[in-house]
């Protein structure tokens, strides 16, 4: 495949991913999916998976709460994976480039919410005034979805198409220790996501289950699927014992 076609396909996938994130939310816009798909387009699925997993961990628990927009995981994963494959710089470097790109995605999303969509929403107001049902659908759904191509698809295309040589040059200039350091930092970054997740948990007095999970994994080497199974068991036990307790009191 020519680089033009590859860049175009990546850009199209990014656009579709954004449409998904604004509508059905099947979550094809998450790094764990974007990485491998871009890998497939660029002809290196293994690197796609590696980049997808690393960035997914980075964004594990960054939550869209209220009006605050998080750094964007979709566009950053797509460009980082493409650049890692074209430049051959490895996963660590891709993850390091993903972060600055994610802020560009965040800026584009802010622009979309604060300017473009306000304009479309006023168009919906006018359509309501004239009871123009098609007008409501066009301005709420069709046009904003098309804008996603301009806002996210076009920059992705440019970055993948023109960026590879440029990025390859930068990669050669980067010292080894820095790359090791970035990979060490990348290994620690999951802590931020988990910490963020801990702050959102509602029933604070359930915290012993946090240590229980940790000890099972730490001392007994139970893997992540095993931990998920244990969590289900603990939920069931808690549910039964608590119901029992309530029945005895009544």
């Amino acid at each position, binding site marked *: 495949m020519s680089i033009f076609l590859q860049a175009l396909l990546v850009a199209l996938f990014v656009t579709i991913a954004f449409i998904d994130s604004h509508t059905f939310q*099947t*979550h094809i816009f998450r790094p*764990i*999916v974007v990485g*491998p798909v871009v890998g497939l387009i660029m002809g290196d699925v293994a690197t796609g*998976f590696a980049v*997808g*997993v690393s960035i*997914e961990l*980075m964004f594990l628990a960054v*939550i*869209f709460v*209220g*009006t605050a927009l998080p750094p964007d995981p979709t566009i950053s994963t797509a460009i980082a994976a493409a650049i890692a494959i074209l430049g051959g710089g490895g996963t660590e470097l891709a993850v390091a480039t993903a*972060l600055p790109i994610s802020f560009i995605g965040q800026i584009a999303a802010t622009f979309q*919410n604060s300017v473009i*969509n306000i304009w*479309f*929403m006023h168009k*919906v*107001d006018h359509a*309501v*005034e004239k009871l123009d049902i098609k007008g409501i*659908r066009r301005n*709420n*759904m069709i046009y*904003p979805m098309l804008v996603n191509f301009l806002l996210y698809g076009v920059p992705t295309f440019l970055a993948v198409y023109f960026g590879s040589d440029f990025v390859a040059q930068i990669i050669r200039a980067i010292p080894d220790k820095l790359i*090791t350091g970035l990979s*060490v930092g*990348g*290994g*620690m970054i999951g*802590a*931020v*996501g*988990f*910490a*963020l*997740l801990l702050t*959102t*948990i*509602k*029933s604070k007095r*359930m*915290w012993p*289950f946090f240590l229980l*999970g*940790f000890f099972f*994994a*730490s001392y007994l080497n139970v*893997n*992540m*699927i095993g*931990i*998920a199974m*244990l*969590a289900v068991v603990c*939920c069931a036990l*808690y549910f039964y014992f*608590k119901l029992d307790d309530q029945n005895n009191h009544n």
Partner: protein
Amino acid sequence: MGKKLNKKDLWKVFWNQMTIRAANNYERQQNAGFTQSMIPVIEKVYETDEEKKEAYERHMEYFLTNDITSAIPIGISAAMEEENANSEDFDPSIIGAIKTALMGPLAGLGDSLLNGTARPILASLAISFVQSGLGWIGPLFFVISMSFVSIGTRYLGVFQGYKQGIKLVDTIQNSGLIDKVTELASIAAYMIVGGFIPALVVINTPIVVGSGESQLILQETLDGLMPGVLGLGYTMLMFYLIKKKKISATILILLTMLVGVAGVYLGILG
């Protein structure tokens, strides 16, 4: 007298609900999406243009909640618009009041259960599938399970919301259902986070104290005491900084990368 909604109309509402955040904007947030979701209802139950316009304008007001749980107030609004069209003494201002009352709790519920619990847990599982060599099974599992969560919740929201109508508000608030679900979700979230730390927060130190026979390799000593203790400690530090010091996660992500690089240059991390 207006008409009643049937299953087919609710399916149309369900599909239109998908556009709830399509034109999300900082002025009135999800209002245009909410209005599009109500098209099948308003067109069915009202006769005159005047009634229709009034109903559409009602839903162009400010509305903001979680994208997925927004299906619940949409289902309830469908029931209330139908009631308004069919009964003489229904006060339509109740519709807006109930929507507003539901915004906060449903945003909290949706953000913490769907984005804060379901998504990170399913993503972590998908990652573990990939890491154990299952390849495409990981992302495929993630997309299928998240579609189930996202689209299934919307389906339940629209259909059950309509069915329960105004009653639903009382049911949710009085049955203690939210409390029960919150407790179980908290147990699951705590265990998953605790259990995933040793594998997903990796911190190793090459520090060696002393030399020759008496030398002490710090990492081996730590692993003997409690494997993964550095990852646990660092996660607790991040938790403290976010919770107590109100430092944003974005800054902590940048700082962590800096700590990694500085640690390697100083020879304390590797």
